[in-house]
């Protein structure tokens, strides 16, 4: 059944390709065809639920940014995954599907907030989780978990308390074991070891 929907979609939308997946049927869709495909999926194929919108940053791979949509059909009780790659790496952009599924509104704002991916045609694309003036996109791969220094969202409070948004101290914090290297060096360690509590982080 999983292959069926993919091949049926391929007949109609020539530019989409099957996508490797461990569970649900999945397709890759180029950004220029996504708006048409989305409308058809909702109206004709019964995918009335947009469950999730998720950005992925593939780092060195091209294209770097991708938006992954998970659709759910209440009739067939099955999911469909659609991956839409952003054609541009510098200013990633895909068409918005707010008009098709209203729930995409917040999901797209979240993806914009976390990855800086813009959604063409979104009614009010602004940050949702971080504050409006926050300068970074935290889920991009080059952004460290500890964060970079910046200003508090409220200038008055920042002036009065002298507090800033600072990089979180990582010593003893989240740590992982690297996948490669000799066994003796694979013990868990802080992911970012360039600075510790004793050697403060260099100013950016």
């Amino acid at each position: 059944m999983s292959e069926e929907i993919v091949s049926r979609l391929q007949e109609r939308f020539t530019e989409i390709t099957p996508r490797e997946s461990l569970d649900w049927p999945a397709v890759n869709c180029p950004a220029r065809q996504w708006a048409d495909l989305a409308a058809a999926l909702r109206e004709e194929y019964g995918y009335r639920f947009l469950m999730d919108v998720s950005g992925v940053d593939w780092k060195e791979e091209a294209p770097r940014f991708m938006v992954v949509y998970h659709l759910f059909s209440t009739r067939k009780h099955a999911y469909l995954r659609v991956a839409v790659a952003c054609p541009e790496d510098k200013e990633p952009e895909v068409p918005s599907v707010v008009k098709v599924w209203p729930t995409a509104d917040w999901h797209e704002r979240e993806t914009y907030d976390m990855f800086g991916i813009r959604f063409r045609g979104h009614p009010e694309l602004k940050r949702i989780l971080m504050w409006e003036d926050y300068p970074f996109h935290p889920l991009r791969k080059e952004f460290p978990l500890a964060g970079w220094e910046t200003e508090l969202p409220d200038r008055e409070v920042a002036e009065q308390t002298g507090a800033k948004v600072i990089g979180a101290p990582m010593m003893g914090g989240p740590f992982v074991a690297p996948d490669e290297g000799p066994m003796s060096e694979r013990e868990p360690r802080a992911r970012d070891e360039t600075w510790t509590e004793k050697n403060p982080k260099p100013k950016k």
Partner: protein
Amino acid sequence: MAKEATEVSYGDVLSRVSRGEGELQPDRMALSMGPSHPSTHGVLRLMLDLDGETVTRCEPVVGYLHRGDEKIAENMTYNQFVPYTDRLDYLAPLANNVAYALAVEKLAALEVPPRCQAIRVLVSEMSRVSSHLMGLGAYALDIGAMTVFLYTFTEREKLYTLFEELTGARFTTSYTRIGGVARDLPGGWLGKVDKFCDQFLPVLDDCNDLLTRNRIFLDRTEGVAEISKEDAIGYGLTGPNLRASGVPSDLRKDCPYSGYEHYEFDVPIGARGDCYDRYLVRFEEMRQSIRIIRQVIQSMPDGPWYAEEAKKIFAPPKDKVMTSMEELIQNFMIVTQGPQMPAGEVYFEAENPKGALGFYIVSKGGGVPYRLKIRSPSFCNLSILPKVARGCMIGDVVSLLGSFDFVMGECDS
């Protein structure tokens, strides 16, 4: 000051007026509700435009509890992330633990033994009861009925005692592991759960008597903030909020996981989709959960409570680690490098008390996820607020928020 005014500044109500967004009219008012407000159940903030008592515009501002869970997940092994799932929906941590473990096991294509599945169903349903009790109590408190809150909290304390005996913590349980649970059920525990169920149903009836036909409660909830089927689906509502609008969608029935197909239970749905229906659906779900719990207790299978054959995923029990060389190495590998997963991507959703909690995991192999997206039901449920709250009275907004039963820890992740 218009340019400098930021999101959190209290000045922005003033600045919006000074920018001339709408003439300054005696009946019009901009009201910032939250982020610290008793009825917003955490740190939700609503920017309301009022015309007299009527809400003309409602803009929720979320993110005040954004802790970076998804980024944290990319920086640690699969098992290390389990404690963070406790703190997503902190009213039902066990259900989150189970949903997360199931998602990662789906990635590993790992089937856990029947006893483990039954334990997971049991704890999920118990946490559903616990979460709905909290929702019910807080809802009643919000609209002025304090007694129910004390009743439900007494029951929650009993559940907490049971959780504590099982997991060692009252509600940050971290009970599941990838490929199993942290420990087997303690002796005699099932009997205690059974006893709890016996005395719980009469208490539920008491709450029912206090609220369901209560004139004041009816006036505050009936016909308030109705959500149509189409809107509920379009805005991606899940869980009781969706079912109250008359959509019989429950993942436990639709895509059964962890052996839910073995148990008999009904899925209550509402007719109108108003606050009262949402309350009734939650109420009935608690009764159904008790039904499932009883079935699980009666049919609890024997056998192993973790996937014994998954040597690269589940760390062996401590007594074996201390006595056998092979298990010691296995334990060391899993603790240092994390459970070994294949490359690929999966999406899994579980029917949590608040709705469908989904995990989208992208793996490049190894013990650390490349990307982990949390689809939080509260986040999607709240996104319908601007549409529903428009036209409500200001007092109804409180009623509406309570009936949504959201948790900001999960919404903002």
